[in-house]
C-alpha cells in the first residue's frame, strides 16, 4: 500500500518539475520498510521523503503541503480546533444569540475577528462540509459562495459598521482587516484543497508547480519565496562565471605537455624528473548587461540585479547598466560596495529614472551615442527587460541592429509570457529580429535553461 502512495507522490513531484529517479523511489520504499512503517510518525515520513526524493532545503515543507493537499489536512490540528469551535458555539447558542452563515453566531465571529482568534476561524472554515461540485470551474464564484456561507461577508459588514459608528479604534479596525484577510486566505486554501481533491491530477500538478520555487514567476513571488529564489539565482550566476576557456597555461594539473617536459629535462641531464602539465585557463568573458528597472518588472529586476552583481564579482570585463528612461552605468557603483548595501542604496542613484516609465527608444539611442564605440566583437550583450516602450515614438530597433552587428552576441531575457510579446506596448516581436537569441525568463528554471544554452 505504501509503495503505491510513494509512487504516486513521485509521479506528482516529477510533473511539478522535480527530478525523481527510479532508484530514488526504490530507496525511499526500502527505507520506509526499514523504518517499520507502522511506527513512523508523519513528520518523520515527510523528512524521509525529502531525504530520499526531493532533496532540497524546502523539500520537507513541500512534501507536507502535497500530502495534506492530496489526502487530508492534518487531522490532529483540525480536531483540536474543531473542539474549540463546538464548545464556544454551544455556549453561545445557549444564550440565544443570532447565527451567521451555517451555524456560528455572528457576534462570536465578530469577536473572534476583533480578538484575532484565528484558530476559531480556521476551525470554522475546516468544519464546513462545502460542496463545490457546481462551482469547480469558477474560483471567483466559489470564493463568493464560501464567504457567504462561513459568514465572512456578515462579519466584514459588522466590522465596517462598528468602525463607522466609532465603536472600535483605527488600530482595532486595521487588525480586524488583517484577520479578515487571513480568513480570506484560509478560504482560498480550502478551495484549492477541495479542488485538488475533486479535480483531476493535472490540476494538482499545476498547483504544485506554481509552488515549486524553481517554477515560481519572478513577478509573483512573495517575500519568503524571494529569499529562497535569490539564493538559486546567485548560484546560477556563479555557474556562468566559472566556466573554463579553451586556452591553456602551465599548471600543476592537466595534460602532460611533452615538448616542454623534454626541454625542462635538459636541466636534469636528460631525465624528465618534472613533468610540465597544461591546464585550461579560465576564460575572461566579456559581458555587458542592461537591466530594466521600471515598476512593471520591479521584482524581476531585483533578481536580475542580484544576477548581475554576482556575475560582476567574478568577471573583470563586465559593464553593467540600469535604465528606466535613461541609461546609467553602474559598474563602479557595484564594485564599491557589497550586495545588500548596493541594492538598498539604488534609490540614491540619480539619472536613470526621470518619468517612471520605461523608454527603450531613448535608452538604446543613448547607448549608441556613448557606448557603442567601445563594444568589440568579443562582447556579449545581455538585455534584461519586458520591452515595453510605453507607446513612445522612437523604439530604437535600428540601434539594436547595430549593437548586434558590433557585438559577439545579443541576448534578450524577457520576464513576460511569450504570447504577450506582441500585445499592447510590448515591442518584443519587433526587437526579436535584431537579437541573437530571445528567451522568456520568468522563473529560475528558464534562467537555468538560458545559461546552459549560452555556455
Amino acid at each position, binding site marked *: 500500500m505504501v509503495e503505491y502512495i510513494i509512487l504516486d507522490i513521485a509521479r506528482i513531484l516529477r510533473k511539478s518539475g522535480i527530478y525523481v529517479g527510479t532508484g530514488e523511489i526504490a530507496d525511499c520504499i526500502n527505507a520506509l520498510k526499514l*523504518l517499520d512503517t507502522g511506527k513512523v510518525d508523519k513528520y518523520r515520513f515527510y523528512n524521509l521523503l525529502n531525504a530520499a526524493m526531493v532533496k532540497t532545503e524546502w523539500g520537507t515543507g513541500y512534501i507536507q503541503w502535497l500530502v495534506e493537499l492530496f489526502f487530508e489536512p492534518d487531522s490532529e490540528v483540525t480536531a483540536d480546533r474543531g473542539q474549540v469551535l463546538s464548545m464556544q458555539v454551544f455556549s453561545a447558542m445557549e444564550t440565544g444569540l443570532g447565527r451567521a452563515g451555517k451555524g456560528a453566531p455572528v457576534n462570536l465571529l465578530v469577536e473572534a475577528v476583533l480578538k484575532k482568534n484565528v484558530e476559531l476561524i480556521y476551525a470554522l472554515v475546516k468544519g464546513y462540509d462545502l460542496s463545490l461540485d457546481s462551482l469547480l470551474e469558477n474560483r471567483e464564484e466559489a470564493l463568493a459562495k464560501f464567504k457567504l456561507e462561513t459568514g465572512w461577508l456578515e462579519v466584514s459588514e459588522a466590522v465596517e459598521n462598528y468602525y463607522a459608528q466609532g465603536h472600535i479604534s483605527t488600530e482595532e479596525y486595521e487588525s480586524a482587516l488583517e484577520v479578515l484577510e487571513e480568513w480570506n486566505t484560509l478560504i482560498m486554501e480550502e478551495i484549492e484543497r477541495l479542488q485538488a481533491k475533486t479535480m483531476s491530477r493535472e490540476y494538482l500538478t499545476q498547483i504544485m508547480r506554481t509552488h515549486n520555487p524553481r517554477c515560481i514567476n519572478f513577478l509573483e513571488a512573495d517575500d519568503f519565496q524571494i529569499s529562497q529564489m535569490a539564493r538559486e539565482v546567485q548560484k546560477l550566476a556563479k555557474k556562468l562565471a566559472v566556466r573554463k576557456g579553451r586556452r591553456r597555461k602551465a599548471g600543476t594539473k592537466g595534460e602532460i605537455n611533452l615538448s616542454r617536459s623534454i626541454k625542462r629535462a635538459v636541466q636534469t641531464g636528460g631525465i624528465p624528473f618534472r613533468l610540465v602539465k597544461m591546464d585550461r585557463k579560465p576564460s575572461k568573458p566579456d559581458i555587458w548587461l542592461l537591466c530594466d528597472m521600471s515598476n512593471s518588472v520591479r521584482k524581476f529586476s531585483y533578481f536580475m540585479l542580484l544576477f548581475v552583481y554576482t556575475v560582476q564579482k567574478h568577471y573583470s570585463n563586465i559593464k553593467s547598466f540600469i535604465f528606466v528612461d535613461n541609461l546609467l552605468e553602474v559598474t563602479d557603483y557595484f564594485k564599491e560596495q557589497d550586495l545588500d548595501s548596493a541594492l538598498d542604496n539604488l534609490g540614491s542613484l540619480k539619472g536613470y529614472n526621470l518619468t517612471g516609465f520605461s523608454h527603450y527608444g531613448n535608452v538604446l539611442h543613448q547607448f549608441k551615442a556613448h557606448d557603442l564605440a567601445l563594444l568589440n566583437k568579443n562582447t556579449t550583450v545581455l538585455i534584461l527587460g519586458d520591452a515595453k516602450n510605453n507607446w513612445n515614438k522612437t523604439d530604437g530597433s535600428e540601434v539594436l541592429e547595430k549593437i548586434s552587428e558590433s557585438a559577439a552576441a545579443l541576448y534578450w531575457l524577457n520576464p513576460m509570457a511569450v504570447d504577450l510579446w506582441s500585445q499592447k506596448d510590448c515591442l518584443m516581436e519587433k526587437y526579436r529580429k535584431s537579437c541573437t537569441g530571445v528567451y522568456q525568463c520568468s522563473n529560475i528554471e528558464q534562467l537555468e535553461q538560458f545559461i546552459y544554452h549560452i555556455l
Partner: protein
Amino acid sequence: MALTELEELKQGLKRQGYIADDNTAMILRLSVLMNKPVLIEGPAGAGKTELAKAWSQYLDRKLIRLQCYEGIDESKALYEWNYQKQLLYIQAQGSDMKKWSDMSKSIYTGEFLLERPLLKAISSEKACVLLIDEIDKSDEEFESFLLEILSDWQISIPETGTVTAASIPSVILTSNNTRNLSHALRRRCFYLYLDYPNEQRELDILRLYFPELKETLGRQAVAFVRRLRLEKLKKHPSISEVIDWVSVLSRMGIEELSDDVAVNTVNILLKYREDCQKIIEKVSQRDWFGGIHNP
C-alpha cells in the same frame, strides 16, 4: 528499525559531544543500513563537519577526510602514480635490462601508487567514515569522479584495473550550498538539511560543553545569538563561535548578559567590522536588546 534504536543513536552522538535531532539520527541510521552516502547541506557553521567527526567516533571508525577546494582533481583525491619513484626504479634497473613487459608490470604496482583519501577509504580492511568536505567548492568535473566510488564502491585505475572496496565506508558529503550539485550525485545520496539549531537545542549544546553554565546566562546568550542570526549580516555566528563566546563569558565570571558585556565581546561572535558596528548600534536600541533579559 525501532524508535529506541534511534534514541540510542542520539544518546551515543551526545556522548561524543554532538546533539542531533530526530531527523539527523534517522537519516544517519538509514545511510548505514542501506550503504548510501549522506549529503548534508546548510549554512556555514551549523555543525556539518562536526557531525561527521562525532559520527566516526560513535561508530568507532577511522575518519578519513577529503577537503575539497577549487581545482581539486583525481590525483589529489583518488590516487597518483609516484612518477619520480618509477623513474628511479627504471634507472636502478638500467644495467641489466629486462624485457619491456616485465618493466611495465613492475612499475605499475602498489609500491608506486600514492593512495589519496578516496582510495584509502575503500581499500582499508576496517570500514571507516569518509568525509568529503565542502564538495560545492570543487569543480563540476570532480563530481563525476565521485560517482563510481559512491554507487559501486570501486575505483578504476587504467594501468592495473578496478579496485573494489575491501570494506564499505560510511560516506558523508557536506556542502555550503553555494552551487547546485549535479543530479547524478544527488541521486546517489540521502539528503539532510542542517540549519542552525533552535534555541532549545543550542542551549543543550552549551550545557553539554559547560555543565556549570548558569541558567539565566545560558538563556540570554542563546536568545542574543538567535537575534544576531535574524539580522542581515555578512557572516552569522557559527555554533563553535558561540561556544568560544560563552567560554569567554564564563571565564570572565559574568552571570548576566548586560548590554556593555554584549558590546565588548561581540567581536568573538562576529568576524567582520561592519557586522560588529551594526550590532553595537542595535544593542544600544532599547527594544532590540531589551527582550533578551526576559526571554
